[in-house]
């Protein structure tokens, strides 16, 4: 697994570059779930990102001076092994638990090959794929579509590039894109569509997306109401990490409603031992602040509902709107509450200077109880903890605020955009949208899952990934894409990061929201 880490490191290093490059006219940039200022790596492969994520590796680096690869591989293995428990698919305490055990939507294992062949005789043809996914995940991906070649005789030429985000728009603009690109953010997809080079997918893909994905995903793969790109991989952000052993020792139970969570926080804060309920960190170089945007998005989705969320993304609802202001206040009630934060590290402003990758470590040293962070944090933990329902570390679904809006889930992921409509390209596009391939992917790569409802949890590796899949497939789940990835880069990767970081260091709510609104591009 050192490869994964490798990739991540590369990606991050490139991130800065990417960001800069993006300047020209290229496209993209959004919240990197995993941290770099370049969203690319992050969203691209949420889980893997994380796996590569910096801190664990670095923390172990000293010990691994002689054999860095060993350590890193062990990190990854932790999630794999922990996933073996059968019960792990039940998201403990979350409402989505009801979905556990639900049979996947009907499989297309028997039919996909015939459909792929129906695009024509493509034997000997080649499809070029361009993506930000490199390293071990790249190897896994290439393995995952082996049976496409077996079935159709067409080959897939895959290029992974950590400068993907910077390059992909330039290549499209210059008129020489690859046949297919895996696009990690809807905002980047919009930039690609703006170049006029993206072609709409064949009807078989549209059918699959309708059949296998929650409706929200189709919207995310659309630009201006035209559907372009089917979802590929997915990760979920609506998780709160905690230590089941610590909870058990104190007799705390996993909260199932927001109010429960606040009550639990109060209870922990009132405890005489001085351990804080929450730990948090948003520092991430010049992408500092992206973690905080996730908090706000989660609360807006729970507090105001998916419709308001959608309007908010389009700026039909302003940041300064009382509804959003109310949500920010609710975020502040937890993360700006001196009694709740910050794991003995310091006051609220210490959140701004604590690296997101380090933010969870106080849970391991028993300095705090909970941290909200996406599923990819699984590989960040130090010292290879037991990540499972009753182990050292686990996560629960960030609870809902009311039952009005179902089970809101904030997600990230990447999309399959095509720049050509040759039969072999369409056949491969179709293939990637099948439940069959979604299962192939999770079997081939420990760190990747899909929101495809045909994905069988049994094929998913790792407790956290199983939990993620069960939440994603919950029929009550209302999934929405990371809003900052959807908003214009000036806001979603710029002003919002900065303003929320400033907010954590003392800026008032109203000023914060006004500042973000002020940065919304005029167009």
């Amino acid at each position, binding site marked *: 697994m050192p490869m994964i880490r490798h990739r991540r490191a590369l990606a991050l290093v490139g991130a800065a570059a990417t960001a800069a490059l993006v300047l020209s006219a290229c496209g993209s940039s959004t919240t990197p779930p995993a941290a770099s200022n370049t969203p690319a790596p992050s969203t691209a492969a949420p889980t893997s990102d994380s796996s590569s994520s910096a801190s664990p590796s670095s923390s172990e680096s000293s010990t691994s001076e002689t054999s860095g690869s060993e350590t890193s591989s062990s990190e990854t293995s932790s999630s794999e092994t922990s996933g073996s428990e059968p019960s792990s698919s039940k998201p403990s305490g979350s409402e989505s638990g009801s979905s556990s055990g639900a049979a996947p939507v009907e499989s297309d294992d028997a039919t996909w090959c015939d459909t792929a062949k129906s695009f024509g005789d493509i034997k000997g043809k080649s499809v070029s794929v361009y993506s930000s996914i490199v390293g071990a995940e790249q190897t896994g991906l290439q393995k995952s579509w082996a049976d496409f070649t077996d079935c159709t005789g067409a080959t897939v030429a895959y290029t992974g590039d950590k400068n993907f985000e910077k390059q992909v728009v330039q290549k499209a603009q210059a008129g020489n894109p690859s046949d297919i690109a895996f696009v990690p953010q809807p905002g980047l997809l919009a*930039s690609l569509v*703006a170049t006029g080079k993206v072609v709409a997918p064949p009807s078989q893909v549209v059918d699959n997306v309708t059949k296998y994905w929650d409706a929200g995903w189709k919207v995310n793969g659309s630009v201006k109401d035209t559907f372009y790109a089917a979802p590929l991989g997915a990760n979920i952000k609506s998780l709160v990490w905690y230590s089941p052993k610590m909870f058990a020792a104190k007799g705390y139970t996993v909260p199932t409603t927001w109010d429960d969570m606040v009550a639990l926080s109060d209870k922990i804060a009132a405890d005489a031992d001085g351990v804080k309920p929450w730990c948090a960190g948003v520092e991430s170089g010049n992408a500092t602040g992206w973690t905080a945007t996730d908090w706000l998005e989660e609360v807006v989705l729970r507090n105001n509902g998916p419709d308001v969320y959608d309007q908010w993304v389009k700026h039909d609802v302003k940041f300064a709107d009382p509804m959003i202001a109310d949500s920010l206040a609710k975020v502040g009630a937890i993360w700006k509450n001196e009694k709740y934060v910050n794991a003995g590290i310091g006051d609220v402003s210490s959140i701004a200077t604590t690296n997101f990758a380090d933010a969870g470590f106080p849970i391991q040293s028993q300095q705090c109880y909970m941290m909200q962070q996406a599923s990819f944090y699984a590989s960040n933990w130090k010292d290879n903890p037991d990540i499972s329902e009753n182990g050292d570390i686990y996560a629960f679904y960030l609870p809902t605020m009311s039952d009005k809006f179902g089970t809101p889930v904030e997600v990230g992921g990447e999309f399959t955009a095509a720049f050509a409509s040759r039969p072999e390209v369409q056949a491969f596009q179709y293939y990637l949208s099948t439940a069959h391939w979604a299962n192939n992917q999770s079997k081939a790569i420990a760190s990747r899952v899909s929101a495809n409802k045909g994905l069988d949890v049994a094929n998913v590796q790792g407790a956290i990934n199983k939990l993620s899949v069960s939440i994603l497939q919950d029929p009550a789940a209302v999934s929405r894409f990371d809003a900052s990835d959807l908003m214009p880069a000036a806001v979603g990767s*710029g002003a919002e990061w900065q303003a929320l970081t*400033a907010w954590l*260091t003392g800026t008032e709510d109203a000023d914060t929201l006004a500042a973000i609104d002020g940065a919304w591009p005029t167009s």
Partner: protein
Amino acid sequence: MTEVQDRAPSPVQGRAPRPANKTKETSWGAPLIWGIIGLVIVGGIWLGWSPLKQGSSPILYDNAKNPGWISRMLFQPTTLGQKLLVMVVAIALFLAIMGLILWLIDRPKIPTGVVLAGFLGPVVIFLSIGLLWSGIKTVIQSFQKFDDAGAANGFVGLDNYAKVFTGQNTQVLINSVLWIFLVPLFAVAFGLLYAVLVDRTRFEAVAKSLIFLPTAISMVASGIIWRYVYLAPAPSGKDQIGLANALVHLVGGTPQNWITKAPLGTFALIIVMVWIQTGFAMTVLSAALKAVPDDIIEAARIDGATGPRLFFSVMLPSIRPTVVVVLTTVAIASLKTFDIVNVMGGNLPKNNILANAFYNALVVRQNGLAGAFAVVIFIIVTPVIIFNVRQMKKAEENR
């Protein structure tokens, strides 16, 4: 003298190497070559002007079309050997072209205009496209709006400038002003003080090197160095890790989260810039001090001036022009530097300055806003440019 040359209709009146009649014989040569140079410039400008969207394949290299190994090696080298080879090839190619040009113009009957083209042509091309036209395009962009893909999308008048002067960006302006005044002031103060203190001591060379070292270090590395000075306070009950907080703790103060507190953060970053620039100021000022004529000092001394009074009433006035130069140079450097804030500023608007605001706008494809920031930087620098051009003219006249 320069005036004369300026008006000279032909090289004859100047110190032309060749008689004028030979120039006339081939007088078509110079216009032709300069015409070609003009075409190259226009071509470059056209390349950068026409919208990207309609661009066809890049002219030289196109990595999607599976180019041959030569072109891949030249444009996308991956191994150490390839990189070194392409470096050598680049230098050799450049030498060959320049050698060819010089060889071509180094013959008896070549008119001055052609010789000039050989000497100045490449520079004129580079600067016209790279700085002059680029600057003009940026100014134009500062009046345009851009869609989220970064494509120009119509003119918006002064909207971008309005953004520069409102909201959070007022803090950016205030910080930039602080940088422009405080950095030069302290860099010159410390530089001068130190120059006087170590002047003509036994350890002068070593002492100066110590102060000068930060100037040779990249600002990114400086950012790492100072990160360990400004580290946030340690968790309660633990020893401080950051040097600044350890010192504060030592004297009984309350440790601070330096970077996140306004205006502490800005001052903390300014200190880093002062640390970097003092070496430069010290070196130049030290040389100026050494150049103060001894008889002036002698005279003052005879009048009874000593120590600080001698310094302030005699030395300082005589090096005033140098002080002004150093002040303006450091001020401009402070205005244009973005690395420190980018690496250390914690992405906080309250620590931001113009150069970094420009960069941030660029990253999120707000090219119009970025252009406006760049133009504001340029406008602030303009008085210094005018001042310098005047000084240069004066110096030319005195030559």
